[in-house]
């Protein structure tokens, strides 16, 4: 493994991990209620009328 190989590997994986951590931090740091999208508790399969 050459020095350039280390640079490419660490920069690539490091930047991807940093971006992912930043994104999930922003998503999960919202209050739980704001992350809830109010799905119906029971899924209506729309078959009642068919």
């Amino acid at each position, binding site marked *: *493994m*050459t020095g*350039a*190989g*280390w*640079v*490419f*590997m660490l*920069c*690539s*994986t490091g*930047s*991807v*991990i940093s*971006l*992912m951590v930043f*994104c*999930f931090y*922003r*998503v*999960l740091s*919202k209050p739980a209620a*704001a*992350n*809830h*999208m*109010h*799905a*119906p508790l029971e*899924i*209506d*399969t*729309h*078959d*009642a*009328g*068919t």
Partner: protein
Amino acid sequence: MTKPKEQWGTRLGIILAVAGSAVGLGNFLRFPGLASQNGGGAFMIPYFCALIFLGIPVCWAEWTMGKYGGQFGFNSCPAIFGVLGRHKFWRYIGVLGLLIPIVVYMYYVLIESWCLMYAWHYLTGHLSLGEDPTKYVEKSKALFQGYTGSDQDGLMVEGGVHVSVIFWIITFAVNFYYIYRGLSKGIEKFCSWAMPMMGVLAIIVLVRVLTLGTPNPEFPDRSVLNGLGFMWNPKSTADGGAWYMALADPKIWIASAGQIFFTLSVGFGVIINYASYLKRKDDVVLSGLTASATNEFFEVCLGGLITVPAGFVFLGIAGTVGGTFGLGFNTLPVVFEYMPGGRIFGCMWFFMLFLAAITSSLSMLQPAIAFLEEALGIGRRASCAMLGIVTALGSLFVIYFSKDLVALNTMDFWVGTVLIFVLAMFQVILYAWVFGAKRGYQFAQIGAELTLPPVFNFVIKYVSPTYLIGVFILWSWNNLPGYIEQLKEGGVRLLTVGVIAATLVFLLFLIAIAGPRWQAEGKDKSRGRELLGNAGGGR
């Protein structure tokens, strides 16, 4: 009475579902082979350029288009394209957003069942390559040919039910079970545990690979470090030039753009469908970026560190080539045969691939289910049954014509590659030039938790289409003539194109029925200004 609209349960749920759709076999099998053969570490420069200027902008455009169409009560690509383009021409172009996932599902579910079968056979100890290491490679290939019936057409259905067909039935049934349960209780619930589990399994295998050291003292150069080097060292050009000279080769740019494109599931019709279940004030910018970043984590940080180093450590350079199937189903079983504890790690690896595949295949069914429901006014049970019949027939066609996997490869080329490019080009034109980049930007910003960079408008209007069209032309120049020549020979390839064409005609017919129905319901009428609030329109 108006039917209650399906919705995502949580925000994390839709992010994991979109990421699950994007993370597939290509992340672990296609990307590492492609990178190591196209410049090694240097491949990452055009790769990240494609991610920034093509992948993420098109993703954001798809999320925005989906959310916009969803405000009119639409969830299918044809209906949403009709609303965005305000002309029935666009409704018919939207057929690609149905055809692609349906046809890809027909063969993808088969590959998915192979992963499950390999995992099961590792678990039960039925997958052994014998005692003689010199015969491992040969036996692994023979095993794959036996499982897939690639020696001769019709092998899978001759003389009783083949074991692969049993796993195909199980996989098919699991997919339809979850899709029938609906968006929140089916897809979202499944992805909520499958995605973290996939991550844990991949990390366990990664730790195993990185701690292998130099397993065979007879080959001291086959170490993990050298395996990582083979993947990540920037390679000099064929004539011995510096590594950065390799960037002058258009091939490396085409390969990286193609990989970004396929890995993020853009041009598939899936993101548009998933985003259509969002509400007006739901965020699309941060959610889209998070789903893309999750996919990149699986590809670069896990796929990039596991597959090629593992193959190199046990088999040298020969263990790093062979394409998706070669690497996944021929080489890796040999690697696990050599690896201490290989049976357990083989089971984990193939089960992880199965999870990666099923989270993608579920996303391929939902756009068609949504379309059938809103086009024909039928319920979920009826739409699942209808789609089940169509996809099962297509899948059985691929199973029957198994010789050299010609039917599978033909579908993958014409639909899973060519049409994806075509749909993405139409999408970018529709978003940036017909609907309006400025208008799209304003709508994307509603509820956004991350400010969309102002340069996004310029990128999506000029850079992405140029990049996309340029790559498509160069790629077509290199690949299309050969495939067209093969089609002229007739046989299974032509028959497969006939199956694709028949599916296309069937879907166009349904759109023709649905159009007047949507117009009569008046759902696609002028709500654009209301949706944008006071922000106004314009391009």
